[in-house]
């Protein structure tokens, strides 16, 4: 071929799966067979049931795929390919593909797609792995494309820049912002960026000061804003935004304004797949459908890990996913059994209530019934309802709780009054042994039904617990039963069995002790927070720990939590069942050192707990 199409070939080779064909002698012939199409925004590229004969590569712009009921399934942008699933099925497309921006596509004839699909393993692997699974594979090879570290900023820009000339008045600028629905406006002089105007500036510098709206906009803009280049990595944008405490960052390409990056764009990037997952959960009409969707949860988890999300974000996302499954199952149960005869509230307990769920958690839940509950009349309904939900959750990858802390267990379906009486009993006659197994009930969150029932019960617990010193010290003693795996001279103590001899359990000996001791302080404080990080923030503000110690615990929880989450993500990537058992030899020197420090912090805080809530006996 003429080497003159090299620019087109090179562009293709910058992206998977074409990067695997770089050395292929026939690639030039494939490039010659490309047809270039221009699609105006709104134009349909592939209609459902239409015969598709090409693999499409997005050279610029963006394309959305929607399923038959018009629900968005994917949004694809520069460098992504589509149309392959219909080619692999030999023809008709089930999705509709529409350009959502002015788009340029390269259409690669299906014979070339099928040729490489048969000939080049790396090429076919790319299509066989689903979108999420691709991330998983990428993470396993330590080269995550999704990571903010390697994600160029231009891929995050969602629309062309909205600008105004510096001499327009404030009113005009504000009108542009509301018409375009943007929270920031780029101010230019002769097409050069000279400033930024945000919603906050309008509030603080105009409205709050009673400034005349007819002043030119350059008098209130932030002049000479910090900018970033479209080719830079998103991680640099995060650093710039954090260090300057700004939420909008103008992006330049070759010195010209190319767009604005907002914190929202970055967050959206991080949690995309969990969001899709949750919306898919609500579209399922039976347990089998939910079970199918649940297979994607591990991938969403791995994606979050590889996107460098912190433990709080991951815990939050995984809990929302768990809650979404539960809610959908309850809706399905009510469809099958009819509406509930009396108000009730479905409770999440433990990690889900604290929004700290990870990947391998069994279900912990309970039911609060309205005080008008009559066992003879309503008993059967709620027995069936909770069995439907708990067994459904079991099928969706949330195994039945071995301790039977489930709505399915009759003794955990109580009226509000009964619950209050039970908590009273636990708190008034605290025996550590009796409390040991029920600490999970002190973290409750209503997730479905009449949420005021859950609020009333939780409020009751928070008010009562604070005054029961005996109860708090019994809880404190329990919290100290599980100690960090550190021996003399700060070496790790291994507690595994059998094949996993050389491991320790990060959950029971690292995370649980922190959560337990944080819960004691939080209840002692009367805080109504559930999330451990939020509880620690309250504890820090209340200054009940020596200065800096609450912050230490936050870091320790994040550190141990992250090692555990990475361990689980690696297990998933290797096709293993995730667990909490970590071999210290498998950690880097850096991780080992920090883990040791974190354990020391936990041990010290356990000592402090004894001192703060002294109890009788041990």
């Amino acid at each position, binding site marked *: 071929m*003429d080497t*003159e*199409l090299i*620019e*087109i070939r090179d562009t293709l080779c910058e992206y998977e799966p074409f990067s695997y064909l770089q050395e292929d002698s026939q690639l030039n012939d494939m*490039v*010659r*067979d*490309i*047809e*270039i*199409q*221009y699609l*105006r925004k709104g*134009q349909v590229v592939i209609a459902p049931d239409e015969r598709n004969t090409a693999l499409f590569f997005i*050279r*610029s*712009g963006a394309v959305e795929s929607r399923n038959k009921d018009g629900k968005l399934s994917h949004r694809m942008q520069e460098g992504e390919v589509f149309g392959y699933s219909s080619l692999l099925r030999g023809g008709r497309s089930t999705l509709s593909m529409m350009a959502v*921006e*002015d*788009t*340029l596509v390269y*259409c690669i004839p299906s014979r070339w797609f099928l040729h490489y699909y048969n000939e080049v393993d790396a090429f076919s692997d790319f299509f066989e792995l689903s979108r999420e699974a691709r991330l998983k594979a990428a993470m396993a090879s330590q080269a995550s494309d999704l990571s903010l570290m390697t994600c160029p900023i231009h891929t995050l820009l969602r629309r*062309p820049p909205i600008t105004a*000339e510096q001499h327009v008045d404030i009113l005009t600028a504000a009108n542009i912002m509301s018409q375009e629905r943007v929270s920031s406006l780029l101010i230019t002089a*002769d*097409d050069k960026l000279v400033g930024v105007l945000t919603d906050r500036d309008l509030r603080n510098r105009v409205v709050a000061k009673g400034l005349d709206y007819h002043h030119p906009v350059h008098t209130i803009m932030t002049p000479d804003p910090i900018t970033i280049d479209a080719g830079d990595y998103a991680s640099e944008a995060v650093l710039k935004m954090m260090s300057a405490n700004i939420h909008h960052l103008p992006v330049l390409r070759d010195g010209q304004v190319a767009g604005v990056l907002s914190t929202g764009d970055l967050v959206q990037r991080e949690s995309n797949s969990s969001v899709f997952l949750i919306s898919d959960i609500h579209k399922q009409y039976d347990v089998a459908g939910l079970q199918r969707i649940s297979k994607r949860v591990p991938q969403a988890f791995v994606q979050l890990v590889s996107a460098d999300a912190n433990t709080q974000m991951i815990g939050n996302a995984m809990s929302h996913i768990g809650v979404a499954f539960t809610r959908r199952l309850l809706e399905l149960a009510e469809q099958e059994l009819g509406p509930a005869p009396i108000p009730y509230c479905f409770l999440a307990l433990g990690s889900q209530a604290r929004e700290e769920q990870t990947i391998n958690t069994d279900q912990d839940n309970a039911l609060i019934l309205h005080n008008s509950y009559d066992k003879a009349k309503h008993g059967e309904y709620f027995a069936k309802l909770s069995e439907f939900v708990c067994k459904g959750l079991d099928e969706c990858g949330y195994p039945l709780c071995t301790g039977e802390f489930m709505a399915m267990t009759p003794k955990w379906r109580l009226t509000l009054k009964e619950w209050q009486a039970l908590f009273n009993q636990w708190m008034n006659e605290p025996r550590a042994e009796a409390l040991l197994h029920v600490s999970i009930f002190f973290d409750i969150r209503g997730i479905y039904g009449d949420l005021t029932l859950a609020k009333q019960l939780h409020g009751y617990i928070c008010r009562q617990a604070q005054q029961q010193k005996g109860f708090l010290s019994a809880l404190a003693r329990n919290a100290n039963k599980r100690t960090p795996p550190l021996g003399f001279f700060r070496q790790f103590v291994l507690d595994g069995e059998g094949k996993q001899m050389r491991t320790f359990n990060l959950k029971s000996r690292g995370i649980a002790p922190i959560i337990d001791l944080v819960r004691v302080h939080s209840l002692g404080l009367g805080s109504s927070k559930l999330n451990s990080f939020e509880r620690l923030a309250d504890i820090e503000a209340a200054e009940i720990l020596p200065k800096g110690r609450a912050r230490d615990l936050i870091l320790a929880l994040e550190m141990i939590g992250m090692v555990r989450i990475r361990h689980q993500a690696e297990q998933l990537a290797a096709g293993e069942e995730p667990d909490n058992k970590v071999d210290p030899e498998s950690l880097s020197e850096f991780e080992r050192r920090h883990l040791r420090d974190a354990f020391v912090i936990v041990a010290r805080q356990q000592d402090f707990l004894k001192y703060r809530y002294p109890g009788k006996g041990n």
Partner: protein
Amino acid sequence: MAWFSNTEKFQYLNRSEQPKPWLPTEGPAADTPLAECPLVALDIETTGLDFDNDDIVSVGLVDFTLSGIQLNSSRYWLTKPKSHLSSESVAIHEITHSDLAKAPPLHTVMDELLPLLAGKVVVAHFHHIERLFLARASERVFGSPTYFPMIDTMDIEQQKFYRPWWQRFGRRTSVRLEASRLRYSLPRYRAHHALMDAIACAELFQAQVAYHLDPQAPISDYWL
């Protein structure tokens, strides 16, 4: 083509008038709807702008229709100039003297090129270069000038964005190929390569049609 001043006036043909027939074969009928018309995007790089003294250095073309650009029809030629290539134009085109020393003479290229334009409407960005240089080359090689209907993407852009001077403020809208493409969100290509510029021009025309032209209108509404 920045080296041309935008203010320079060119004598366009009266559009209602059928262009003079061109030499190799007939073009498409004047009433062919734009959507059905075979098009070919053409770009010629030269040693300078004086068509009497400067030479063609490279030619790129690609066939297209409104539904797509077929890369397998793309062609690219270098041609050996008779005059010495100045170092400035070497820099612009990224073509070296040794590339050109090996290149075929102009008449070989013209023999291959003209049949590929037959039956199609030629699309170029700032069509004067292509029209004038090809006419002169044809005169040299065949003894008479070619003349064929053309569509000019720069002219379309100028008409679209034309504003009398009293309405202009600040910087004027650039109608250069690169700047025009950006208005339609088309990607940035390496400029001044005859084939990539021809492809870029074909893409631009597709975008222009999507925004400004009527695909069902007769081709004679648009050709020059």
